[in-house]
């Protein structure tokens, strides 16, 4: 296991005190501020754009700050576009995918981590390879399969697809957490007469809570952010999600920048919430997912 933890707050390597030390320190703060500014400014610009009046959007020369702050773009996006449908579909698809992935991944990860059954190693290897498959290689045949069985343009079809494609990472992640548990805990539960299922639900699951949370957060965000699968497998407001909604602003109506920026801002809100409130899980998940698959 790679000993990488983004959480680590150990003091950084000591640098020798030299005459240039102060200059060096100033340079470091400049880099810090610039890096953060460059990382955040484009998104701040999206927010600023979404708060302008339609006239000011196309003002030349470009103004840095809006002369009047208005929510008219947000109103437009809900009244003149199918925004409510996109948001609703995105929420339903993402939450249903998280539920399905969690329920399926946990028992599977437990078996892969703790049972020595024939086929376990094969499954683990296949999961690793699945992580590398380009989504488009999956989207193309699924379109033809789904059109044959009526799953095209349905929330159910999208949820099943997302669940299948997010399962490999979720299973790897949970396996990692289960393998870090001392076996003695499960063994003592076994002595107390707990069956496999009881052990999984009442002993293992609570202990790997952070792993389950990390997997859920990552599954939610990757499903929420996905464009390609939804673009391929949906075609109407019945199942189109927010990212597909964004492409509809481009292709159907020309580019309507005001409402589009408002839609973009709304899409980023869950991301910001997760980064703020679930940062630890997000980082754990990214690192474990990265290291292991």
């Amino acid at each position: 296991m790679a000993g990488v933890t983004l959480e680590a707050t150990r003091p950084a390597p000591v640098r020798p005190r030299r005459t240039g030390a102060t200059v060096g320190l100033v340079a470091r703060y400049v880099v810090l501020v610039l890096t953060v500014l460059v990382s955040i400014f484009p998104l701040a610009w999206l927010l600023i754009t979404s708060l302008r009046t339609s006239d000011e959007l196309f003002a030349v020369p470009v103004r840095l700050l809006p002369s009047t702050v208005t929510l008219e773009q947000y109103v437009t996006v809900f009244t003149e576009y199918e925004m409510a449908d996109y948001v609703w579909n995105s929420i339903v698809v993402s939450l249903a995918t998280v539920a399905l992935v969690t329920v399926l991944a946990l028992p599977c990860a437990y078996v892969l981590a703790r049972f020595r059954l024939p086929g376990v190693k094969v499954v683990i290897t296949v999961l690793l390879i699945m992580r590398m498959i380009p989504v488009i290689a999956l989207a193309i045949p699924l379109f033809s399969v789904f059109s044959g069985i009526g799953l095209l343009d349905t929330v159910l079809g999208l949820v099943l697809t997302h669940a299948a494609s997010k399962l490999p990472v979720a299973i790897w992640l949970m396996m990692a957490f289960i393998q870090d548990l001392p076996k003695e805990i499960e063994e003592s539960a076994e002595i107390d007469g707990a069956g496999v299922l009881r052990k999984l639900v009442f002993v293992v699951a609570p202990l790997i809570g952070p792993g389950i949370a990390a997997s859920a957060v990552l599954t939610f965000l990757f499903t929420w952010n996905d464009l390609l699968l939804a673009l391929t497998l949906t075609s109407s407001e019945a199942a189109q999600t927010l990212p597909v909604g964004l492409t509809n602003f481009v292709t159907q109506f020309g580019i309507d920048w005001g409402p589009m920026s408002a839609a973009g801002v709304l899409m980023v809100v869950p991301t910001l919430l997760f980064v703020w409130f679930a940062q630890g899980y997000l980082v754990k998940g990214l690192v474990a997912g990265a290291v292991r698959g």
Partner: protein
Amino acid sequence: MATSQMSRPRAPVARRSRPAPKWLTGYALAAPAILLMLVIFLYPLGHSFVMSFFRWDLNSAESPFLGLSNYTDLFTGTSFGQTLRNQVIFTVASLVIEVVGGMAIAVLLSSKLRGLRPARTLLLIPPMVAPAVVGLNFRWLFNEQYGLIDAVLVRLGLPAIPWLSDPAWALVSVIIASAWQNTPLLVLLFLAGLQAIPREPLEAAAVDGASAWRTFWAIVLPLMRPVVVIAMMIRIIDLFRTFDVVWLMTQGGPGNASNLLTVEAYKLAFQSVDFGHAAAVSYVALVLSLLVLALLYGIPRLTSGRSAWQA
């Protein structure tokens, strides 16, 4: 535990209090997830691999066997050559910018700086934002009439750049947007790696009077090798399946100037309704990414990483 029972899987379990033998429980618990992946992931994938050797057109009932011609067609046509070249440029340029830039920033930030903690939280935002939003946002920033970037360039007395309409700049624009999104992730990974480096060799180097530059090359970089390898693996896999940013910024245009493999596969399937060629392109993308991974790190390393995991 499981081992002893596994050596004789069919032996009847003596105690009646146990409803099912352990191996059966094991398979039963793992089955739902594996079944779903088989039906919705592996079967379609295999199906499209087989169909990449046929004429595969959803409108016609007949699908004659074509052998390798879906693949050879790609390499004789001119547009695929450009797509492939774009993909190589995009992958190499992005990797260099993200890894070198990410490492430089991480090394400079890797000391006791006030505000580093909140900065790390903020740096987590770009990698987690939907790539579709990133593409859309940069399309707006790069807009030639109303975009901020050209406005700033003009204000500084520089010529405005036709970011998205000039074939020479379109791919550059896409690389910039993608690097903006992903470099912070590498900064975070490298920062974590740098903090895990033992202090003794660094102190020894300082005592010996080694320059910061030499310390970095001789001590820090070799110790960071595993982290760099992991970071590059994640990025290579994702760079070969980049779609969202390109689709919202340029749709691969103008012409084919910013077309990447996944974008080409999507267009072939859903604009030209030519699923056979599209499937072939998607498999070329997969094989290329595996090839690059294998070339860089070797298949043994991939497998040894896995067995270390199981130990």
